[in-house]
């Protein structure tokens, strides 16, 4: 099966600084969850933002839906890709329901169809619409905001979802719950997910495949077993060993 998201020899640098990504290769198959894990500053968020054209690569190729991203209209492309960020990134002046309906509104869905879809998703992420629809983000806990962020990303049933440290701001208990929930909705949906995290434990818990990134390159990708039993280099060995301690 052709990958739904693919990076080939990608390089990206920001004004004057050494490249954040250099020789970056990665692919995500349809329906698959790839956890991109690495220390802060390793370039993982940059890689994610290249996929929905929030950033543009200097060299190499980024392909989404089997076409180079730079050939695609960024607005249309982003509406087909779910996007979840830390803290949810919800619009503070909109209600929960309006937030979940953002993309379907942009896509011009009729209001009853938008409403039915948002209620379905709120139920799926465990926020009964009767209780939560008309609340505003500041009236929610961090975990609830994060779930609204997930519901918003999934509203238009995107074949690909990008998640940037989605659980990064949650306390350990809420984080655990959010991860369990992630697995439960992931089982029900066919979307592929690229999940960026600095937390190896989270990468192991959620990723079908784990890719370790350091200094702008993928050092190793594979299963938990591959990484722990057969680390490709010293960096991976050390990175993985932190879990044991």
């Amino acid at each position, binding site marked *: 099966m052709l990958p739904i998201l693919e990076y080939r020899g990608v390089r990206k640098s920001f004004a004057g600084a050494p490249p954040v990504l250099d020789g970056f290769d990665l692919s995500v198959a349809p329906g698959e969850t790839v956890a991109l894990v690495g220390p802060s500053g390793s370039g993982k968020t940059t890689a994610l933002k290249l996929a929905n054209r*929030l950033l543009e690569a200097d060299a190499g190729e980024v392909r989404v839906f089997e076409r180079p991203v730079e050939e695609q209209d960024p*607005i249309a492309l*982003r509406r087909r890709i779910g*996007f979840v960020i830390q803290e949810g*990134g919800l*619009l503070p*002046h909109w209600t929960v329901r309006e937030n979940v309906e953002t*993309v379907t509104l942009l896509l011009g869905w009729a209001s009853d169809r938008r409403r039915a879809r948002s209620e379905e998703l709120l139920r799926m992420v465990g926020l009964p619409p009767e209780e939560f629809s008309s609340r505003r983000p500041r009236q929610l806990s961090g975990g609830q905001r994060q779930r609204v962020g997930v519901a918003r990303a999934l509203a238009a049933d995107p074949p690909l979802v990008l998640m940037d440290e989605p659980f990064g701001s949650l306390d350990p208990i809420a984080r655990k719950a959010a991860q369990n929930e992630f697995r439960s909705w992931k089982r029900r949906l066919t979307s592929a997910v690229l999940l960026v995290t600095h937390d190896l434990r989270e990468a192991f818990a959620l990723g079908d495949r784990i890719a370790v990134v350091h200094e702008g390159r993928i050092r190793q990708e594979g299963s938990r077993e591959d990484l722990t039993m057969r680390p490709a280099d010293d960096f991976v060995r050390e990175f993985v060993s932190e879990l044991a301690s």
Partner: protein
Amino acid sequence: MSELSRFFWERRAEITALAGQHLALVLVSTLLALALGVPIGILLTRKPRLARPVLGVANVVQTIPSLALFGFLIPIPWFGGIGARTAIVALVLYSLLPILRNTHAGIVSVDPAIVEAATGLGMTPGERLRFVELPLAFPVVLAGIRIAVVVGIGLATIAAAVGAGGLGVLIYRGVATVDHRLILAGAVPAALLAIAFDLGLGAVEKRWGPRR
């Protein structure tokens, strides 16, 4: 005091008419300043390199003594002359800065994470402006409008100097005839108008503020 209130009462028709003129001057100039200031403020957020010089010029205009500005405007062909038009041009120039500055500041201060989320979800720049930036900047813009209106009510008393009418007419007449009652007949209603608008717009601001 009772003599003064009788004096006011006898001239109530004239005071009301001049207060009406006064408010009309402020209202028209504030609307024009909004029509100019909000789009320019938005433009400055899109072209950050223009922000400093444009805000600088608006700041300098603000420092020109108002009486002098009226004087400068009189000989200018299209904008100037004697009458309401000159007064409105001057009032617009003064109201522009707070509205322009607050529109710019309000949009720039929107949390970049929210702007990026909106972009990442597939909003066009226009949709982002309409759905995200303007609503979130609104309380700040409103604070600018409040300043513009209150300052405008005070400044509009000088409009009488160029024959534009308003409550300044009474003040100038009072100064010319050394009649304190006439000065107060212009100054007290002007002050009351300023306070009323300050409180009213302040209440609107409070109503909209906590939505952030």
